[in-house]
């Protein structure tokens, strides 16, 4: 791949947007990592969205007798049953939505905060930058999962609070990345020229800076999303999940606490676990691939 290096000076204009966007998708598809990530992601989404319609899960379907609990996979229960005689396969199909929902809303919060702060910090530079980056560094240093656990223990464990808590702790890295990119963008001749023509700060940020950091935001989004899904799973596994909305982490929590491990009930553990791994892996494949495709430094080394 031989992308021309941006030459300094007046010619180094910001790229044409639509063409650039289309080429990002094409590059992503041409990269094996990106392609497999997209294929896996599509598969997961189809299973999560359509699966529960075909195989609805009824939380009240408990086993009618002792013989129906912790059953190994069979024709009636494809992935066996839980310690309460519930169908593991159906429970996992429904649980995926909750994991994805929490992941997405947490990521949305993190992106708005991270990209917003990064944009302001990088664009204005100076004292605003100093203060915002001090705050960012402080939150960057705090150990994330312990902080999430503490917040969840203090403020409750509904999926709404969980999303909020994960979102509020996942933004610092994004802020850092966006800021450094904006810092270099604001020095570009185009931005300087537009400013001398009288464009306001908000307009410059919206029209000239934001579209150019957007790909970077998306690459980062995929990675933050996989981190958020992992965080939610860990939280639910540790018993801080929403007791009503059973996510994959909650199923694993129940499996662990009901002694399914010593009973050798592997189906109870593997099914939700594989769900988490496939979902997280597909997002991180896409994220890493985007990072590779978009990072101008990496493109030189072939």
């Amino acid at each position, binding site marked *: 791949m031989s992308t021309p290096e941006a030459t300094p000076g007046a010619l180094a204009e910001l790229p044409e947007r639509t063409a650039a966007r289309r080429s990002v998708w094409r590059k992503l598809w041409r990269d094996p990592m990106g392609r497999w990530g997209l294929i896996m992601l599509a598969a997961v989404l189809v299973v999560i969205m359509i699966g529960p319609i075909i195989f609805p899960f009824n939380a009240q379907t408990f086993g009618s007798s002792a013989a129906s609990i912790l059953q190994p996979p069979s024709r009636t229960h494809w992935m066996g049953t839980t310690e309460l005689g519930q169908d593991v396969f159906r429970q996992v199909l429904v649980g995926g939505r909750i994991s994805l929902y929490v992941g997405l809303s947490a990521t949305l919060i993190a992106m708005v905060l991270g990209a917003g702060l990064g944009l302001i910090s990088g664009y204005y530079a100076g004292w605003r930058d100093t203060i915002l980056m001090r705050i960012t560094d*402080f939150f960057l240093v705090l*150990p994330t999962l312990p902080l999430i*656990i*503490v917040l969840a223990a203090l403020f409750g464990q509904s999926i709404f609070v969980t999303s909020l808590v994960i979102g509020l702790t996942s933004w610092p890295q994004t802020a850092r990345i966006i800021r450094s990119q904006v810092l270099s963008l604001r020095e570009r001749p185009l931005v300087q020229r537009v400013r001398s023509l009288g464009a306001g700060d908000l307009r410059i940020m919206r029209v000239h800076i934001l579209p150019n950091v957007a790909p970077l935001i998306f690459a980062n989004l995929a990675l933050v999303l996989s981190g958020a899904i*992992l965080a939610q799973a860990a939280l639910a596994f*540790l018993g801080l999940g929403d007791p009503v909305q059973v996510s994959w982490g909650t199923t694993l929590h129940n499996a662990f606490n009901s002694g399914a491990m*010593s009973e*050798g009930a592997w189906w109870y*553990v593997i099914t939700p*676990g594989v769900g988490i791994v496939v979902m997280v892996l597909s997002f991180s494949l896409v994220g890493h691939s985007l990072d590779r495709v978009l990072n101008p430094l990496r493109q030189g080394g072939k």
Partner: protein
Amino acid sequence: MTARYLGRKLVTLGVTIYVTVSFNFLLFHVLPGSPVQLLARSGHFNPAARAQLVKLFGLNHPLLTQYVIYLRDMLQGNLGFSYAYREPVTTVLGGAIGNTVLLVGTATLVTIIVGVWLGVLAASRAHSLRDATITVGSLGLWSMPDFFTGMILIFVFGVWIHALPISGLMTPGLSNGTWGHLVDVGRHLILPTVTLALVNAAEFSLITRNSLVDVLVEDYMLTARAKGLSRRVIVWRHALRNAMLPIVTATALYVGMILGGAIQVETVFSWPGMGLLIYNSVGQRDYPVLEGCFLLFAIAVIATNFVSDLLYRVLDPRVRRT
């Protein structure tokens, strides 16, 4: 390294720790839903008992006074009193901290060695099949929650082939300090360590690979090859040294990650460290212990960052001279 630089760094360290301690106060004592307020507001008390409780925790003082008392207690090493253990938090933490250091320390050692080695293997043949295998394998491992990896290892090594102990620190009943006791603890240590190291080594190998790939295309690498140096010497001596900087930075952030992993792994393997303590405190709503654990974790990460900053300066002559 100039004394002035070190002094400035120390001041920053002090300020960061102070802010962390204050943040802790905000979390556990000021925000609505803080445990002490919940306790005092609970409906199960008659007014007299509530008044006593409010006085005991100093809630009758204005917030600023409470803050000053809190800071004074911190300076005296008083982290409060555990609800569940009915012992000072420091005593409870003291019994757990060593086990966590043992687990996290061993896992870190394994992580760095295996991770850097895999990263070098991948980068030295960049864009080859080997590189792709290691990169995708690392991403796969990275995508596994620590607790899930632990549960799989328990199934394989504990339930199916009964090869290794899967729970606790040692077999009960062994006398302390004997050789057999040491071996026993070592055997208990294997699975938790492997679990923690798997996920984190994956992350390390990715960072090492990317950093090394960037260095290997530099002009001085071509010079080194032109001088007739062997590939091995070029990669391990010349390139890796220059690729170390991002790895050192990553180590600082890594500490926060491995502590998060330790909570999950200690829970799965009932390893009696601070992670298990956090898990139990959450279950028992033992907030003083939770607060102490979080504070200790935060300070551990801050301290590692401090050391890594200094190390960065030692390793990078360009930064050292400025």
